[in-house]
């Protein structure tokens, strides 16, 4: 049986590769243009998440190791993320902006929900490629949560809602969908921490045998180096 993915997931998947390829710096450049449209606190949260990403994941890390090979560790987005707040408050909206910006800066396309989501999408959409951020009506939420290729859900919710969401996501087949929940919608004590960003990314190691055609320039240099 062919499973038809919601159109938003299909669109998100189609733009995912291009959005992810831009890199943190490229995405930051685009996302920062959108900041003026947000309220002060929302803007601060969004900027903080962008800056945090620049610090934590922008650079490809060259890993130490034997001479004659190059090992690089970098981060990539996970795929389509659903960002939703199940709590209504100004602070929660700040949190939701934080989740959206974290998901986006990490390289994921984002789908928001309802009017709150629409407002956020409208402010970001002019600066990013079509499909990088989309919004759905509340009524479409269930089908999106059930979608196979949804990589993660970033949400503001209470403990019970978190458990329920967790159960629903776990019940699906396919990849293990990440639930990144902020249950402290007043203090935002989880999502505005330096390491929270890491949950939005997946990592990639590229190992290159730099001596495949012969020669090991690095080592030859070390071998002939003066004391």
């Amino acid at each position, binding site marked *: 049986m062919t499973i038809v993915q919601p159109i938003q997931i299909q669109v998100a998947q189609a733009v995912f590769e291009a959005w992810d390829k831009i890199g943190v710096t490229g995405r930051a450049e685009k996302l920062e243009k959108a900041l003026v449209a947000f309220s002060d606190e929302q803007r601060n949260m969004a900027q903080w998440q962008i800056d945090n990403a620049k610090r934590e994941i922008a650079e490809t890390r060259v890993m130490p190791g034997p001479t004659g090979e190059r090992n690089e560790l970098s981060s990539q987005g996970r795929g389509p993320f659903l960002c939703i707040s199940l709590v209504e408050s100004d602070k929660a909206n700040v949190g939701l902006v934080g989740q959206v910006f974290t998901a986006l800066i990490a390289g994921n396309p984002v789908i928001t929900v309802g009017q709150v989501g629409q407002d956020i999408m409208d402010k970001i959409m002019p600066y990013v490629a079509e499909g990088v951020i989309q919004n759905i009506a509340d009524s479409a939420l269930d089908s999106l949560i059930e979608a196979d290729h949804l990589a993660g859900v970033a949400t503001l919710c209470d403990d019970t809602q978190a458990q329920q969401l967790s159960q629903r996501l776990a019940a699906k087949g396919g990849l293990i969908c990440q639930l990144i929940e902020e249950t402290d919608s007043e203090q935002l004590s989880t999502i505005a921490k330096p390491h929270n960003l890491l949950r939005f990314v997946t990592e990639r190691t590229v190992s*290159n045998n730099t001596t495949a055609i012969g*020669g090991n320039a690095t080592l030859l240099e070390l071998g002939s180096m003066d004391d």
Partner: protein
Amino acid sequence: MFKAIDVLQPEFIQKPLNELWTLISPLYKADEESWLKELLPLAKPTEQQLADHTNAASDLIAKVRKDDDNMSMIDALLLEYSLDTKEGILLMCLAEALMRVPDKETADAFIKDRLSVADWASHAKNSDSFFVNASTWGLLLTGKIVTMDENQDGTPANLVNRMVNRVSEPVIRKAMNQAMKIMGHQFVLGRDIKEALSRGKGYRDKGYTYSFDMLGEAALTAEDADKYLHSYEQAVESVGKDTYNQKHRPTISIKLSALHPRYEIGCEERVMTELSESVKGLITKARELNVGITIDAEEADRLELSLNLFEKLYRDEATRGWGLFGLVVQAYSKRALPVLAWLAALAKEQGDRIPIRLVKGAYWDSEIKLCQQRGINGYPVYTRKESTDVSYLACANFLLSEHTRANIFPQFASHNAHTIATIHCLAKQLGATSEEFEFQRLHGMGDALYNHLIKENDICVRIYAPVGSHKDLLPYLVRRLLENGANSSFVHRLIDASYPIADLIDHPVTTLESRKSLANPHINLPANLFDDRKNSFGPNIEIASEWTPFKAKIDAFMEQDTQWRAFPIVGGEKVATGHTHSILSPYDHSQAAGQIDWADTETVSKAIDLAEAAFPAWSARPATERADCLDRAADLMEENYAELMALCHREAGKTIQDSIDEVREAVDFCRYYAQQARSHFATPTSYIDFLGQGKQAQLKGRGVFTCISPWNFPLAIFAGQVVAALVVGNTVVAKPAEQTSLIAFRAIELLHQAGIPTDVLHLLPGDGATVGAPLTSDKRIAGLAFTGSTGTAQLINRTLAVRGVAPVPVIAETGGQNAMLVDSTSLPEQVVRDAVRSAFASAGQRCSALRVLFIQEDIADRVIPMIKGAMQEQAVGLPYLHSTDVGPVIDKKAQKMLLDHIEYMKTAGKLIAQTALPEFADKGTYVAPTAFEIDSIDQLTDEKFGPILHVVRYKARDLNKIIDTINNSGFGLTLGVHSRNETTCANIASRARVGNLYINRDQVGAVVGVQPFGGQGLSGTGPKAGGPHYLQRFAIEQDL
């Protein structure tokens, strides 16, 4: 370590051969400082000698520089395109690969990739050589054309460019191929021995002679070995019939790795029979025709094997009394001097003479790299160039000594003016006549130096000349040239008139003695590879002095009377539950490794109770204390290496190298996570929050962590999960795989011994129903690390989610459908070696193992038969034997699943090859490595975790579609790429959604802290094990 200077005493080589033999192996990785102190007196000149050597060298260089015709074309090329320049390397890259690319599309893309990124203009008109200038202009123009501005659709941006482009690609391709042919013509004396003999006449008229070598890649298949043998036989015949200038007869050099597909210690029996017979046949023929044979030296691991083979052949009736069967000794090897002494004694004992070519050595950088990768605790080669030069002179001193000359005919191969001049002086000082030694040089290098030497002295100079098709040989020679950068740099400086002669004639002893340390401080020993932690150790199983004593320790655990008895460990107590299970060796089900009691529900519950109670105190301990426990555990694992390896053999059916790698990985996990914890968990992190306020966050443990690990890495993954959770501050309940719980039991014992409190860490062996289910459904579980199948991960995730508590982290590493993409620029020999290892090592039971090999259709007909041939050379057998490449699969269930798939594929695909099984295979659970050709990856629904490879042909233009197909499988663990085109590699790297991507190498064996490992999508949640972000997921981050 023996006293090196003693070799100069005539009685030294009168010692019994077996006594001299024992001096060789222990020097394999001798302490460099100590051994060089021994060697220096043999190389150290007196003041008068120093003056003589220096003057001779200075004189020789001055003459060479005055000579208008001082450069061969290769010298000239290297002078302009030095191998330390980008252009030099790019040019060599082209030369290495272009001629073998059969299809236009890939060739054009490759030319563009290589030529568009260098500054060719800067080389225009620099050289006096027409050949070099012509090449430069060709490269310059080509580079300009291929870098023309393009529109987004790839068409040239303006009319002129469009016009040029229309004609350019075929023209460029033709021109570049022509340039490579010219280069091949320079590097290779002849495409066959007839042409080589003909082209060599000019030099022979000048007094040179030759040693011809039918060089090329090592043979991977019996068919390739036969081809090489045939070409050597033809060469012997042609040279034997050659009557031109009989003064110094040309000889043939042979490369043993070309004559046997498994010329390695593990296949010693085959080497000493099959290879021995091949070489003996050659010797017999060569002796009839009076053509000397010299065995080339290869990697350090093969030295002792090559000596054993040499001795056998040398003592054979076919060789006895001949005096023209010799071999090559590499001076960069720490074992060179005792090898020479042993050879001299061998010759003396038999009353013959052995020709020995003394070279400096051509595999220096790969020897260093290999030791670093394998964690060998030392190097077989010197780490400074001048140390090799010292060793060379020390060996020369021995070889030219009167008592040695009677039995050895030394052949000094060098392109270094100082070395040549010094040897020449030394020979005179020691009374060696020009009949008692000779010099050797490479075809195309060092012409000017030797032209002068030969003109002024009655001395034999032999040119080592490669013979073979340019297409096959050029890649090989270019690699050798690149690996021999030191040689080319000397050539470069020798000819460069601006480089002071005085700087070229420093005596190596003077240079070395002026150093602060004799060993190179810039090249760390493998143990010190990392700045912040000790590297794990691995014994070298190819070297007798390393492996024999180590193996003896393992053997002590290999007999049936050694039986391990294991239990659940709860609160430090072994809990006898009565649910006792025998663990049988996968290679022989009539043999047991031991017994284990499985945990019951009550035991599980008690373990969680204790772990929960212990959490506050353990979590409160400083991270540095927890880290210290991990470091101690690593040391204990290395102390118990032999027992752990025996368990890997007997319980998991792992081969020797796999078992070493297993222990090393576990040790590395302990040390790496210990260091990560010290860096990130010992003190809080200061940061400014989004409101601009300064804050401090501390990473802390979460509570009780469940760790569920697989059987395929029963120590490494088990320990990796457990220590990661522990060092963060969690307490742990660990469930190992049912098949491999004995080694897990020992690991827990060692962790407790290392200081992990017994109430903090508990072992719960058992099956999923009795142990796994409560460990995932208990509300107190604060997080879970799992490695295994995707389906089980989903099930566990569901169980955790329905507990009615807050969601917890699930760190899952799951399956893959791993592919390798091979384009037509790649080197088939490298592809086949890496594909076979990636698919069949560990019987394919690695998460990273290759399942689907995509080969560009243009080279598939060359590569697929090579895979077939290489698979026929694989040995399936008992895992604890060195000769075994592939051991058993883990159990009957796995075996049945794999055999069913093989049966299915016999109709759904086309069988390429199946490796033979041993006679005793029925005693255990063996599955023959099998390869099928299929049409598409879509024919595979799920991962088959075993030694089964699927091969798919693809069209070059469909590469992006193939990447899409791989991405669409949903799995994303490993991907291999073989291509010389960096643009292609970069494109694949940017598009493929995989966790670990490997370029121009195999795709298994990720190293902790070097190649963080883990997949994405259906292959895992991340973060990567052995990476800098792994521990954070086991923790919570709290503001202070």
